[in-house]
């Protein structure tokens, strides 16, 4: 029986989901996919008439610690997955951002993680969510159950629809199940802290560290006013304890010219990286728009200079390859971000903004016409009648 939860259609299994979608399609209905709601404010505003919820698609399907793989249903809360992985000292490799600091409440789920390709600071060494997502099942807009990938890490049989759906904001299908490869939790971690570097020096320090042989797994820089009145640059190494000690020492030597001051360990280090991961430092004031800008680290400073006073606050992750940015929530500011980035190459995405702004301006980097046409054809290949998440990524698609 299909249960209606808070006005959302909530199938309990794939067959029920197929039936709902098939009916919606015939009835010319449009559906907005919802999970735990923690990332609902990301993307363009929903336009669908009804909501399709993954809430009842709960639970871990399997966790094979010896194979380092986990399969869970789309509605499974990430907190439950963390508990299961903790018991075996394992983790999702990509350190997914918890959007609640920026966007407010809700409960992060597998479905939302996949839909947004939610990743974190460890992407410099372990890649993004899409790099660890090895299989999925979804219901497409024709009401068909589709499987892609599987449970093995190496799999090149056929077209990879797994990555195509990761970060597609549910515009191509209703995810029912996802399979991830895992990593062992590091036995130890250490974070080198360098204080009082200006932006160019912070980027230089991070570039030196990431270009070193010491396996840096986090490189971020906070600007003055973010927790301290001075700027702080952070470099993390993880692994077996003796190895972490060795590499932290080696990095301190390598970075001597930047004046590294202290090393954070254990919970202190973890708390710091959670803050970076979740971009807590840009959460307030809540009226500001928050952007995620992918740019070559060597151009990050130039980007900010071009943006000038439109940049109200910023921090760097991924060695400067990701600039997290706060601006005023206006179309003029959005245009300024796009204009500043255009000559440098890169991608700017609005992660937080009032609904009317997300409706009025591009949330994602605008694509050239040929790619927009291709995006439409891909959408049609999965969802020809536009049942799912209409307009969530691009207006009219």
């Amino acid at each position, binding site marked *: 029986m299909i249960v209606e939860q808070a006005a959302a259609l909530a199938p309990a299994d794939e067959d029920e989901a197929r039936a709902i979608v098939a009916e919606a399609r015939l009835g010319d209905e449009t559906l907005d996919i919802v999970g735990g709601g923690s990332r609902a404010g990301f993307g363009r505003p929903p336009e669908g008439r009804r909501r399709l919820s993954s809430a009842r698609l709960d639970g871990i399907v399997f966790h*094979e*610690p*010896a*194979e*380092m793989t986990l399969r869970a249903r789309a509605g499974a809360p990430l907190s439950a997955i963390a508990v299961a992985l903790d018991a075996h*000292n394992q983790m999702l490799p990509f350190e997914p951002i918890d959007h609640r600091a920026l966007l407010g409440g809700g409960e992060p789920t597998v479905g939302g993680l996949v839909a947004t*390709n939610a990743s974190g600071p460890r992407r410099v060494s372990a890649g*993004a969510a*899409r*790099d660890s997502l090895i299989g999925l099942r979804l219901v*497409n807009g024709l009401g068909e*159950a*589709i*499987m*892609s990938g*599987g*449970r*093995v*890490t*190496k*799999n*090149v*049989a*056929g*077209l*990879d629809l*797994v990555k*195509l759906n*990761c*970060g597609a904001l549910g515009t191509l299908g209703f995810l029912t199940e996802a399979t991830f490869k895992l990593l062992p939790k590091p036995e130890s971690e250490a974070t080198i802290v360098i204080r009082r570097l200006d932006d160019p020096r912070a980027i230089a320090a991070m*570039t030196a560290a990431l270009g*070193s*042989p010491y396996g840096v797994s986090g490189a971020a820089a906070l600007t003055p006013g973010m927790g301290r009145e001075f700027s702080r640059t952070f470099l993390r190494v993880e692994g*077996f304890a*003796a*190895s972490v000690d*060795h*590499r932290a020492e*080696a990095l301190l030597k390598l970075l001597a010219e930047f004046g590294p001051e202290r090393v954070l360990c254990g919970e202190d280090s973890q708390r710091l990286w959670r803050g970076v991961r979740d971009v807590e430092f840009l959460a307030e004031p809540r009226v500001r728009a928050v952007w995620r800008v*992918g*740019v*070559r680290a*060597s151009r990050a400073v130039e980007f900010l200079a071009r943006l000038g006073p439109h940049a109200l606050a910023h921090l760097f992750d*991924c060695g400067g*390859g990701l600039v997290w940015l706060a601006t005023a929530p206006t179309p003029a500011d959005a245009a300024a971000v796009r204009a500043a980035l255009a000559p440098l*190459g*890169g*991608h700017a*995405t609005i992660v937080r903004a009032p609904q009317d702004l997300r409706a009025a301006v591009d949330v*994602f980097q605008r694509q*050239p016409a*040929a*790619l927009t046409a291709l*995006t439409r*054809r*891909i959408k*049609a*290949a*999965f969802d020809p009648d536009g049942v799912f998440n209409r307009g969530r*990524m691009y207006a009219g698609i």
Partner: protein
Amino acid sequence: MSQIAFPSPDPTILARRDEIVAGLAAILPPDGLIADVAGRRAFETDALTAYRRLPLAVALPCSIDEVARIMRFCRDGGVNIVARGAGTSLSGGAIPQEDAIVLGLSKMNRILEINLADRYARVEAGVTNLAISEAVAADGFFYAPDPSSQLACTIGGNVGMNSGGAHCLKYGVTVNNLLGVRLVTLDGDVLDLGGPAPDAGGLDWLGVVCGSEGQLGIVVEATVKLIRAAEGARPTLFGFDSCADASRCVAAIVGAGIVPVAMEYMDKAAIAICENFAKAGYPLDVEAMLIVEVEGSEAEIAAELARIGAIAKAHGVRVTRESMSAMESAQIWKGRKSAFGATGRVADYICMDGTVPTGRLPEALERVGEICAAYGLRVANVFHAGDGNMHPLILYDVNDPDQQQKAEEAGMEVLKMSVALGGSLTGEHGVGIEKRDLMTCQYSDADLAQQKRVRAAFDPQAQLNPAKVFPLERRPA
């Protein structure tokens, strides 16, 4: 009689051959077009040498503009296109057809940009895999995916097949090391997908293009991640008296939370073949051997090897040999990487590429042995154990049609077994023509139809690398 079917060539295309060659000649300089039979013969097969078809013509463009014009010309004329890098595909991914042209990228082989600060290289599609690492080796960097054919294979082909290699256990396969591609579509549009800045947002075009076997467009440039090499790296050999012990040891190492850079498995037959060729000092009196490579400082290497050694001991390892020098390490890897070539010196073989969950490896190895024995064929196993990517080399005599048929049938059974154990038909070699008709074992009709609709979004008439990857559709009589 070989088993893999080819569609019958379109007679209307064959009849227009002169006109098509003339059209290409108007786009390409004289040395960029091969139309004579002797010249075309060099492009009639790839590393799946049991099959060959003479292409209509071979185009070897030097520029993106030439590629775009060829694409539009072929789209308008309904001519099929088979992309080709170095022709090292083991699955027949670059084997042409009589009514198709080969579009070879070998002349587009420039390294365009190396940026060590941002850790990427931008190269043309015809650059070889190894050339990228060589170009940055002096600075201590490398490009991680390392297929055995890395001396010859091109980055364009690597993107097409999402190639792997021994060191992918730690660093990932091509798609995890690819930052951007420049793709020329059938319409002649030049699309820049991804790029050196991380996290493009929008649809993951790179993810779907990588591994698409030349069916979505022509990759003319790739931007790849450069990684700074660790302080040091060292392989160690572990010899076991039983294959089951060796494969259980692999699962135990993975299960203990250790991720070596590489973890390779060779059985007795493979050891003998490779040792005879490479003189790498492999132990000849063991049933199976693991090559485990770890990296880091001297102390880190020693500590990690101690952990791995203890696990190996618990699994009855009899011979342990740590490489003592860079030269010895090179020999150890030379032996492993020349496995396919060395096997080719003793027999013809077909190389399977199925992947199984690592926990099922012992069972899978046993089944491979049983299947080949049932067909009266010899098999050598050499593969990437850490990720369950098996490479049984089924030995046969190519001049004996009966044996070839048996070898192919045994191979098909091995692949079906991989899928049945929860794995995949192919971990890194691609589907090509070889595994095309087995795709229905792994995917439902709806799954395959969905993949085809995505393909059609790029190439509605299926003109790019046709009759590959997807089961051959029977044409109406």
